[in-house]
């Protein structure tokens, strides 16, 4: 059985992803762009995200894409290539990147859907490349001097867990 591998992202990966997302957001003339892992966790974002509650947005977007995928299979389709929500002032474009991440593009009145679709296709390929490289990279061992060495989190004690929850 193939174990689920964890997603580990370092500074350099994130800056590459951020650069992609920012270009996409500008070139698509969208309000904001979110990159979400398929289990519902936000990886990175660009654009006007301050007013957005990004955590539940990420979770609900992942649920929505997962449901769309299951619907597609019921109908004998491999997948639906995107999910689109059309509101009065806001629109959402959700698409999968290589089956492992979700790209959420928030459109406002100034955005054109055709342009968004075009740019999403282009940048999805770029972001997928970053993920492919991530997955090929040998698991960095905790060697001294290795810049990718994972810091050792160490033994987790009951006190650590108590501290996580504060006084509660």
């Amino acid at each position, binding site marked *: *059985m193939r174990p*689920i591998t964890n997603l580990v992202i370092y500074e350099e990966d994130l800056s590459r992803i951020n650069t992609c997302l920012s270009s996409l957001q500008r070139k698509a003339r969208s309000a904001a762009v979110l990159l979400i892992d398929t289990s519902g*966790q936000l990886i990175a974002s660009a654009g006007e995200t301050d007013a957005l509650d990004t955590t539940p947005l990420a979770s609900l977007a992942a649920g929505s894409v997962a449901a769309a995928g*299951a619907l597609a299979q019921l109908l004998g389709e491999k997948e639906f290539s995107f999910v689109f929500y059309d509101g009065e002032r806001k629109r959402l474009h959700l698409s999968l990147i290589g089956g492992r991440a979700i790209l959420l593009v928030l459109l406002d009145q100034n955005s054109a859907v055709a342009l968004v679709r075009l740019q999403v296709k282009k940048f999805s390929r770029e972001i997928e490349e970053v993920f492919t490289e991530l997955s090929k990279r040998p698991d960095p061992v905790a060697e001294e001097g290795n810049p990718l060495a994972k810091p050792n*989190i*160490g033994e987790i004690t009951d006190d*650590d867990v108590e501290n996580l*929850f504060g006084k*509660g």
Partner: protein
Amino acid sequence: MSFINYAAREINCKLVYYGPGLCGKTTNLQHIYKKVDPGMKGKLISLATESERTLFFDFLPLELGAIRGFKTRFHLYTVPGQIFYEASRRLILKGADGVVFVADSQLERMEANIQSLADMQQHLVDQGIDPDKISLVIQYNKRDLKNAVPIDELQKALNSRNLPWFEAVAPQGIGVFETLKAIAKLVMQELQKKT
């Protein structure tokens, strides 16, 4: 799938509350939401029908303290319990780092508990997760009811792996945080093994 962000020094984990319909999964999340400091939680989102039965999932993001300088986030999900929401349950288990199996202690729900546990194991296998290796704790809920089955019988029927288990009365908050802390610890320990 846990997501470790070294750039932001953050750890993100997904925890799923699984169990038969009406066993008290949503009630667990409601209690956690009520008690956690306002600065540590996001909105509790429930995708529910008018009769308040979970339709797709409940979602509660927690932003807890730090471990060795890593800010820790747990995203809590519940699954809908009714038989016909099987497809939804499978989707929610996707990428889970830890599972709380909530059992309904009532005698007449024994069969539903056993069925739900078997379902869960099958769904995990389908997701490529080894059901014998995933971090898992069991909560025996509804201990306040007269028709509650004795613990040793529940243990025999549901806990062959000898997993950590907790008695609970979720609406009163009894056992709720004990369960959450136990699964949090298991998941963090597992993460530490991988890093």
